[in-house]
């Protein structure tokens, strides 16, 4: 496409993007709760904090939070039902988890996906062993040093 300036070309993808920007608010109009999480998709320690905000400005709601192991929420579990707008989940085992929230009788929010992948036991035992050695050497040095200095005094 040639615009006022003959050397300026506008790509068809740019036009599509601009059109999408105009249409986007209408597409998202039905979604009134925005769910976010403290982790960016991956948890190495099995916990996550979920937080949600009501985007239409209304207040005084009861919320329902669901957790499932499939994106289709085939066997969901209610993990919170109440007025708070955040919840903390911990002790999750390795696997994929999906979360969503809605007001009572309202629409579901966006889905938050979380992959829990704990550190390997190999790395764990290496760090555990190093920690034990450092502690024992530190304790030994303090005890030996104290006894030696007491003898000298």
């Amino acid at each position, binding site marked *: 496409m040639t615009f006022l300036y003959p050397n300026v070309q506008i790509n068809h993808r740019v036009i599509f993007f601009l059109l999408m920007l105009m249409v986007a608010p209408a597409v998202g109009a039905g979604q009134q709760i925005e769910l976010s999480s403290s982790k960016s998709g991956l948890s*190495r*320690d*099995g*916990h996550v*904090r979920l937080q949600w905000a009501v985007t239409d400005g209304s*207040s*005084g*709601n*009861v919320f329902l939070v669901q957790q499932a192991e499939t994106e289709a929420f085939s066997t969901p579990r209610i*993990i*919170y039902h*109440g*007025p*708070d*707008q*955040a*919840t*903390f*989940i*911990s*002790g*999750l*085992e390795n696997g994929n988890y999906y979360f969503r929230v809605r007001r009572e009788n309202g629409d579901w929010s966006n889905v938050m996906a979380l992959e829990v992948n*704990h*550190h*390997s*036991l190999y*790395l*764990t*035992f290496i*760090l*555990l062993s*190093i*920690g*034990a*050695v*450092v*502690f024992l*050497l*530190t*304790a030994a*040095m*303090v*005890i*030996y*040093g*104290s006894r*030696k*200095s007491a003898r000298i*005094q």
Partner: protein
Amino acid sequence: MAPENRPEFNNMTHQSYIISPETGWILLGLLSVLWIVLGIYWGKKAKSMEGYMLAGRNVGLAFGMATVMATWVTSNTTMLAPQFALELGVWGMLAYSTGALGLLLFAPLAKRIRALMPNGYTSGDFIRLRYGKPTWILFLIISIFYGFFWLISMGMAGGILMNAIAGIPYEIGTAVILGVCVTYTLFGGLYAVIGTDYIQTVLIMIGVVIIGIAVFQAVDMEKIYSTLQEERPMLLNALMPAALMAVFNNLLFGLGEVFHSNVWWSRAFAMRDKVGKKAYILAGFSWLPIPVAAGFIALASTSLDINVTSPDMVGPLVAASVLGKAGAVVVFMVFFCSLASSLDSLLASTADLITEDIYRKMINPSASGKKLRKVSSGIVIGLGVVALLVCLPRIGTLATVLFFAGPLVASTIWPIATGLYWRKANARGAIAGMITGTVAGLIAYFQLGWYTGALVGASVSMIVVIVVTWATPSSFNWKTLHEIHPEKISDENASPKS
């Protein structure tokens, strides 16, 4: 009752709270007035700079043990230990209790410090005399950075606590607790800090017993186990990786905190001869059960069906929920005391470190005792104001904020310990250990998680200190540490000879 009709609904963190803001304000006012009045009363004893900074070097066993224990029962014990348990399970709870080893291993150090430096004032004094100026500057940066992060974590904890229990806005709660502690530390120095610590210890012990009995009666152990097994299975897993890593990470972080911080050195200097070692041992054993009890109540939160909106709020929330509105007063008091007892200590010791090591040693060596006290007061106020400003955005949870300083403090363990006992230890080893330990620990903090930073920092620092010292040994003369403070010299010259 529908949530929108409930009078007690906190719209800041969206967490239901236990007592009304009015009751919270009354409690806050009463405790604030009590500590300020007591602080001013005890502060009258501080006639000289040595009295203000070190309580006249005459603190006995009871007060010595109480101040050590109260200072270690910080917001980190009452609020962070439950967070550990909620995030990392049973191992997390035990990991936190390893902090007692910091006090127990510092006990022989306290004796050694008092013997080597009978006239010492700060931990900075030791590093300057033992290793020289470059190491001293690096140490001051680490120590002040750590002190400031600890201060922030406690200011945040104050705001979180008052918000969780009484719905007092986070910003106001943080400002009030910092303001109260700044005020009484300003008037009374270490006399006020140790005096208030003594009463705070008694209140904390009574409160912890009440909370412990109430929680134990309210929960069914089998239900706790079955609920955790069903909803949070990894918390009961003996091989939970992050929790296992946290065990020695927390232990080494605790060692680093106590070994390097002027909070603990100033108490070693302030206690009478031969009191320090006993006081630190007794305080370590007395502190040990508190994080276990505090952590246990967090594990009960699931079976009690308490929604936790932020992991650092779980301790006060569960305790207050179990005890009800009347009991929430006890919870409020215990948590307020645990915060105040550490905040005041940290304000006083950080101000001492900046006054003594930066102002007097670098800027104005001939400053009089009166001038130093004026400067110290200004620093206490300045620290309070800056801490408040940093606390306001609530940059993370208590654990992530505090443990960011982990690699830095853990890298000082070996430079301090070898400096006290190993004649061959030298500045090259100390500097190399602190820098490499800090860098490696921070990389681990960001790459693996906050529960590895101190562990990696301490390990790398230890190896580097040992290798560099063996490669380039020196022979230190311990008498170099017998420095006499200028104010003391002028006091001795001014007093009539008997």
